[in-house]
């Protein structure tokens, strides 16, 4: 574990050991429920979650990377730790996820500032160490850039769907990718969110603390807002339509295209017997092989793995994507035509 100073704990509260922190400060959770002064912090914690749930970043009392008032610092940390207690008591996973992501984005701001800090070498070092400790990425400073190994870059960048994150759109030299401080921390946002999320999930759920009930009930109500219903139009996406047309014309659809089509239709609930006739016009059609391969895809033979339809990104690489505006930035053909209500 990293040794953190007071400022750092306020900036990166998820690195602190919650129980130990409270003990060190001489508090118990029960006090926060009963003491009128401390109870304000429970409200502050609720507010921290509410803001996060709405997709915003909690505006902290930190100014720049300094604490505004000496007293504000423990309050920063307390509100974070109490927010976790409230989330655990409410048991609402959608809120936990949203909170973790918002907290990750909050920490991201500080990490970026610390990385770019030219006047204080130790701040930069700490940010580099946090990235290494948490995500095993070795970041090196090179002139105005931060460089990381291409393989490390790829492990994280594949989670992005914007084209600017594709390796081809990056400055690559000598096995390394060159990034700005902003890009360096942006690269690990999801993992930072996952890290905070798992810390919360793995934290013990305390029994209900008197004085916390109101906030917990409010959280349960709040989470209802985020339940979504989806409706589908039932229309096939252009990649699937294209594949079916190719087969109807008797064109030779590549293996990857057949894989996509089979996996897609199976996911949509069609049976192997319903799908197989689609392939009968293929130049190399063989009923036995087709059934074998479809059963393999469905997981009814072979290893039992049920294969899923490849992502849009993968289909682009394979020249199987024929995106139209209605695709609307989906990341997998299976999402085509789904509308949230």
């Amino acid at each position, binding site marked *: 574990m990293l040794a953190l100073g007071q400022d750092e704990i306020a900036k990166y509260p998820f690195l602190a050991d919650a129980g130990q922190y409270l003990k060190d400060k001489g508090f118990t959770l029960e006090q926060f429920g009963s003491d009128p002064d401390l109870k304000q912090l429970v409200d502050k914690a609720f507010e921290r979650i509410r803001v996060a749930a709405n997709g915003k970043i909690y505006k902290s009392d930190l100014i720049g990377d300094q604490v505004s008032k000496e007293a504000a610092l423990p309050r920063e940390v307390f509100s974070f730790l109490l927010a976790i207690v409230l989330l655990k008591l409410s048991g609402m996973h959608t809120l936990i996820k949203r909170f973790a992501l918002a907290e990750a984005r909050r920490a991201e701001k500080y990490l970026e500032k610390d990385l770019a800090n030219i006047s204080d070498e130790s701040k930069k070092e700490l940010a580099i160490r946090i990235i290494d400790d948490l995500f095993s990425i070795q970041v090196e400073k090179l002139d105005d850039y931060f460089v990381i190994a291409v393989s490390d870059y790829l492990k994280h960048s594949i989670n992005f769907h914007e084209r600017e994150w594709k390796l081809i759109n990056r400055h*690559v030299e000598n096995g390394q990718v060159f990034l700005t401080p902003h890009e360096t921390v942006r690269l690990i946002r999801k993992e930072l969110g996952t890290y905070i999320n798992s810390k919360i999930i793995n934290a013990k759920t305390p029994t209900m603390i008197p004085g916390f009930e109101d906030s917990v009930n409010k959280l349960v109500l709040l989470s209802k807002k985020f339940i979504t219903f989806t409706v589908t139009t039932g229309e096939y996406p252009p990649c699937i339509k294209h594949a079916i047309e190719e087969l109807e014309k008797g064109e030779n659809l590549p293996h990857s295209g057949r894989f996509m089509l089979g996996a897609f239709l199976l996911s949509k609930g069609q049976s192997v017997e319903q799908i197989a006739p689609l392939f009968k016009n293929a130049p190399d059609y063989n009923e036995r092989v087709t059934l074998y391969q479809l059963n393999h895809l469905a997981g009814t033979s*072979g290893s039992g793995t049920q294969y899923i339809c490849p992502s849009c990104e993968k289909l682009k690489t394979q020249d199987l994507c024929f995106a139209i505006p209605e695709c609307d930035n989906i990341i997998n053909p299976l999402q085509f035509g789904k509308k949230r209500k």
Partner: protein
Amino acid sequence: MQEADIKFLEDSFKKYYFEHFDLIRVPERTFEREFGYQKFNSGMTRHISIKDDKELHLLFMQNIPSDVYCSNAYYSFPNLPMNEKDWKEADLIFDIDAKDLNLSCRENHTVSICNECKQVSKISEHCLKCNSTKIEKKSLPCKNCIDSSKTEVSKLSEILIDDLAIDQENIHVYFSGNEGFHVYVHGSQFQQIGSRERSELADYIMFNGIIPETFGMKKFKPNRSSFPDFNEKGWRGRFSKQVFSSKSKRSKIISELLVNGYSSFQKTLDNVSENIGVKIDPNVTMDIHRIFRLPGSINSKSGLTKILCKNLTKFDPYSEASFLSDESVEVFANCPIEFSLKNKKFGPFINEKVTVPTFAAVYMVCKKLATIA
């Protein structure tokens, strides 16, 4: 394929295997590899593990396979079903195949064989005799096909070395035994990356998914100074050399690009991509569980051997990868395209009975352009 043809191919392959065990070696870290093989007119047998050269040679002698494969991946338990193998890592692999290069020479040496009536005709989407669309295309790659594939291999090597910091000694180029090359990269930083990461790497090498901004072109208020310099490294440098062609023309061409605007620049990129992107088969690179033809084994699509190319520039597959015997064989050939093997010319043969050396007979039988008389 008919019984007599299979017997002929099996006999010829067996003789080669027996006489050339020196060329067939187990790869390093043998215990961690998955092996597989196919027999003529039969399915794939895979998930096999092999101990050493002796066991491998036994597999060849007992089964007389048409094709033998070995994984580029390393597993704890290579002989278990896929999801129990415990994948550890995999060498990077690139497949460059002449058929993917959009070469204009292709139609001169490709024929369509009808799966229904067996008619061999000039390249066509349907059978000229019975109109069936069940067509199998067979190509007899020419020198241009091989040379163009070599150019792609050189482009690939340059990116691997310059951009991705891979040591030249860790790049091994093999002739695939048919129409192209397999490039293996050992011991790089990429050994442990998964399929999605490899797919991104493939896009990088192929110059896929590029956006104009990467080369300095912006939608609003583009700026001259963000265009790449002539001597820059990586894709920006390769782009400069292709588009500006010389340092002195850079400024003038940037002005033109700025006048033509953003969407025209996207088209420029698409055109450039055709020239500077490396034409690899991305499906091969991103598959981390695939088994590849074993070096030293014969490719049953041609009867030629998959071998290491020590000197790629000089390498001639039609003299260096043909190891079968010179013994004469009588075949009934319908091979409308002339071809050369071991510095001898053969064909074209139009529905005729001919006597040719075994290596040429095997080549035609593998291509389904001849049968044993």
